[in-house]
């Protein structure tokens, strides 16, 4: 009897078609531009609501959840704040795979400043320009910080385009601090990059078992790339010409080559053996265990260094501070420092109630008194009044470093191709630092490969290799 066999085949075909329809039905990605948020915050719900963030796993994420649940809920008692965290290396993937599915389990993605271009061109986050105009005191911010964490297209260093659209607001400011051993190299921090290298060399020679330098060199995330970009900036180099979208011949010009030479041939020999895969935690561990004379790390990740339970440098915070100093980065040909930190944005795929709550949270968070409380709770605010407040400056020894660094910041490329550009730079700098490529070849490869990525934007087929 063939009838049931036919039915079976038919059922299989129907199931396959149904699966295809279900799978394809959710693809609403034909419109690749960011939807607009309303200028006024829509009516908020009084039902219990959980407002979810997504960030990577580090101390500020815990601080934000605790702070927001303690303070925001005083006004909105029906709201619970949840900061979901993923490992740093998965941060971009965790957000953008959900964006790709056009469904997110978070309402406020905390994007690195360089992720904005990709999210905006894909239509993943709301355009909040009108909302900001109506609800946020833009004059209260250093214009570059407001631009860096929210504007697209990218702001030039230190400038904000008043006519550009905004897609986010500052959540956490950050930059690198130089951490130095006052008991080993003296109370006064080195003023220039050359002096810093000389001091590290002397300290390493005089203190066996302690390495001169500790900095980010890892292959994952943006670790090694930020290190090179910092040295590149200090030695007068540029990452690209944003107007002509030119990288070849810019990053690998004479200044860029000098920066790579300094990094690989002068700084790397002063680091510990096997430190070629170090990132934030490893650098902090080396400092806390007294194994480094001078180290560079993000300010927002430096709080643990003062915890006596995590340090061998002292039994009290004061004792540790007697040995550790925090300073702005040394200058050389320029005084540029890397822009860190992140902004908060609103997922385009969140429900209307949660989008309204997210906008309300952002308005609340950017108020002067809340920014000062955030500073006291361990956050790094972006408002100028909060940056200059005693609440912020007295909250940690590195906070003054941040306040002094704001005018010196430089960011990377904020373009949709960011993830590939950073991977190319990261792997090549890591290769140069670990002897897998000679420095000049590595820099030329960065220039060539990154230029190919920018030039192939919009090319059909074979992209991404």
């Amino acid at each position: 009897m063939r009838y049931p066999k036919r039915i079976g085949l038919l059922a299989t075909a129907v199931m396959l078609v149904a699966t295809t329809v279900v799978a394809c039905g959710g693809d609403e990605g034909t419109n690749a531009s960011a939807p607009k948020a309303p200028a006024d915050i829509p009516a908020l719900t009084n039902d219990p609501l959980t407002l979810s963030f997504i960030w990577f796993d580090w101390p500020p994420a815990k601080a934000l959840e605790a702070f927001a649940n303690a303070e925001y809920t005083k006004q909105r008692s029906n709201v619970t704040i949840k900061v979901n965290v993923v490992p740093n290396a998965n941060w971009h993937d965790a957000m953008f795979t959900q964006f790709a599915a056009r469904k997110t389990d978070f309402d406020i993605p905390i994007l690195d400043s360089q992720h904005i271009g990709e999210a905006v061109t894909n239509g993943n986050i709301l355009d909040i320009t009108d909302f900001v105009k109506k609800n946020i005191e833009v004059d209260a911010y250093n214009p570059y910080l407001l631009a860096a964490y929210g504007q697209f297209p990218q702001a030039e260093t230190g400038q904000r385009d008043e006519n550009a659209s905004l897609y986010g607001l500052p959540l956490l400011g950050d930059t690198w601090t130089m951490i130095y051993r006052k008991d080993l190299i003296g109370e006064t921090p080195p003023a220039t990059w050359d002096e810093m290298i000389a001091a590290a060399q002397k300290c390493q020679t005089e203190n066996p078992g302690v390495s001169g330098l500790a900095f980010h060199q890892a292959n994952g995330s943006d670790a090694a790339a930020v290190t090179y970009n910092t040295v590149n900036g200090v030695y007068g180099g540029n990452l690209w010409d944003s107007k002509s979208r030119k990288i070849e011949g810019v990053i690998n010009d004479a200044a860029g080559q000098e920066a790579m030479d300094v990094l690989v041939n002068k700084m790397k020999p002063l680091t510990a053996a096997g430190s070629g895969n170090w990132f934030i935690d490893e650098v902090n561990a080396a400092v806390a265990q007294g194994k480094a004379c001078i180290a560079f790390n993000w300010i927002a990740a430096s709080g643990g260094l003062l915890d006596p339970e995590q340090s061998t440098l002292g039994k009290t915070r004061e004792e540790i501070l007697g040995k550790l100093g925090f300073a702005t980065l040394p200058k050389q040909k320029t005084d540029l420092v890397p822009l860190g930190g992140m902004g908060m944005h609103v997922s385009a795929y969140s429900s209307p109630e949660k989008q309204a709550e997210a906008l309300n949270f952002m308005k609340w968070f950017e108020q002067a008194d809340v920014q000062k409380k955030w500073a006291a709770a361990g956050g790094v605010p972006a408002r100028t009044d909060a940056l200059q407040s005693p609440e912020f400056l007295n909250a940690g020894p590195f906070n003054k470093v941040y306040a002094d660094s704001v005018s010196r910041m430089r960011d990377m490329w904020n373009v949709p191709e960011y993830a590939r550009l950073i991977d190319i730079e990261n792997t090549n700098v890591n290769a140069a630092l670990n002897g897998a490529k000679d420095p000049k070849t590595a820099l030329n490869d960065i220039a060539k490969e990154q230029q190919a990525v920018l030039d192939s934007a919009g090319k059909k087929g074979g992209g991404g290799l």
Partner: protein
Amino acid sequence: MSDPVSLTDHPVREASSTPPAPGRSRHLSDRWLTVAFISPALLLLLAMSVFPLLWALYLSFTDYSATRGGPATFVWFENFTAILTSAQVHMRAFTTLLYVVGAVTLQTVLGFSIAYLISRRVRGRGVLTTLFLVPMMLSPVVVGLFWRFMLDAQFGVINSMLGSLGLGQVEWLTKQNTALISLIVVDTWQWTPFIMLIALAGLTAVPKYLYEAASIDRASEWFRFRTITLPLVWPLLLIAVLFRAIEAFRLFDLVYILTSGGPGVSTETLSFHVYKVAFLGFNTGTASAYGILMVLIVIVLAQLYMRYLNKLKED
């Protein structure tokens, strides 16, 4: 008593003509029951395996990007051509080949040696086998994480041991010549038990009388191993090698945890590269074509290998 031959000749026809049991609906024949029971599994298979494969095949001929969205434009074989002619892909293919050959060879030699030694031991064989199987039961991520700590150049136990022997520090995970070796060693630590288990099954199945006959002929240990043990275990061992080679070919987790593909891209395998193409640039079409090509390579090589195995069996 019915004729058993006639039953086995037409089992389906006999079963379908059986009237429904009392209490069962008249329309619910055995055939329908079969379909009803198979459907959930079939649906799951279609949704989770067949559909994604067909969808990936379709995407591999397009320039689709999961994040950029929009319609998928057909680029036909452009993705495949770009992958097959890319120097970046060739580099990863060579790394993967080195890794597969190194890891599978080491695992086969060690696995067979351990199995041979265990098979000769009468007491405690079960306990020893179980102990040797422990690494295989662990998650590769867990294995990667604790080996990462053990291989740390500054604080790791391996360098500490080397130091106590008066040997210098080795940068296991950050130097080009040691990073791939470290990956092979860690994979070997975890998967040698798999080869050992299969080899042990083969060794246990060798008939005792062959060894007894060889003993009567006063054959040497090496002669017995060469002419009895190895030829009889060899086909089973080759199947284990096939399984391990396929697994090693798609290595991702250990690379991700231990080296992130570094230093530079010197330990990036094909799977790790596909991950980057798929999730860093979200070039979904290219990544699909890359994945399809990897599946095709495995299928073709496995088929050639199976032919060799069949030939071996016939001989």
